């Protein structure tokens, strides 16, 4: 089975007691030691106009109760205000990804994940690691 590794590093020297923390995990299927073996690839999207509810994870396309992971990044050049609004299911707001920001989130295949662009001419990328 494939071995896929995700590593998060948070680094700051300015908080007292700060410094880098680095956490790695191997992406595995739910409740097992078997590596996740399906991947959508990384999609890159150019959105010319402001748009709402662009699908990233369509829950109906995946089995439930899985240990999937979704990666999303706002890859718009830094315009300061062009954020990507990330929403769950029926428009429950998760948060805003400003230019350069990324997220890595578990997805269990039961909840839609969507994004909305706040400005014209935005770019974003995403990929889903899943179990089918």
């Amino acid at each position: 089975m494939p071995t896929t590794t995700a590593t998060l590093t948070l680094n700051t020297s300015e908080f007292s007691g700060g410094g880098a923390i680095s956490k790695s995990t191997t992406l595995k299927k739910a409740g097992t030691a078997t590596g996740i073996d399906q991947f959508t690839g990384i999609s890159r999207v150019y959105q010319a106009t402001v748009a709402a509810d662009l699908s990233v994870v369509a829950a109906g396309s995946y089995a439930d109760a899985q240990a999937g992971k979704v990666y999303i990044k706002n890859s718009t050049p830094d315009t300061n205000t062009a954020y990507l609004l990330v929403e769950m299911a029926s428009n429950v707001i998760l948060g805003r990804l400003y230019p350069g920001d990324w997220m890595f989130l578990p997805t269990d295949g039961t909840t839609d994940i969507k994004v909305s662009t706040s400005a014209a001419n935005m770019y974003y990328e995403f990929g889903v690691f899943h179990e089918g």
Partner: protein
Amino acid sequence: MATVSASLALSSADLTSNGLVLNTTTNLKKAGLARTNLDNTTGIARKSTTSVDQYTAFYADEYTADKAHKVYLKNTSNVASEFFTVAIDEEVMGRLYAGDFAFFPWSATDGVKQSFTLTLDLTWATGDKVVFDGVTVTTATATTTAMVDDIVAQADQYPNWIPTEASEHVVLFTARSSNNLENMLEIESTGATTASVVSTTAGNGTALIAVVQEPEANSTANDIKITPSVATTMTLEHALLYEL
């Protein structure tokens, strides 16, 4: 301002035929035009539980809405079958299995807080009482105005509500938390009295409540909620980087 960088590396030699190498880094900044660096953090913390009861890791009410906050979560378990179910409000995001982490933006969208008025009328006597939310207020002066003042003066003592003076005879109680479902008033109509508020008067003094904000609208704050999968010890590591 603090500079905090967040990096993600995703790699695999055999997930796809040409492998996967993805590296991305961002400096965490505040929302909006200024885009200065995020400068507040809860620090890295751990919470251990021994039940499968859901708990709230971060309350939206405690942070400014629509900012560029970031949440870090990690399941420290080594047992492959153990997971935390992560939800925002009532929507499940996913499961964090042993060793898994998550890093995501959070808007901390506020909910609607329940509120009601308590109107004191007719003749109140020294020693009359109003009991609510575990707090007993006994008036030392025989006027409704003084009783309102006495209740408001005890604001810090109410664990779930904040009383403020709406008028000289009326106290406005506002819930401290918009997801404070366990403390809902079970009242349906204006002017009803309820066991939630108990008044004891020697004379003909009255204490009537009227709903200002219905409790049905309350469960809307986008709190980050965690549910352990087993009742044996599980530990969640968590942190919030936020702005005021």
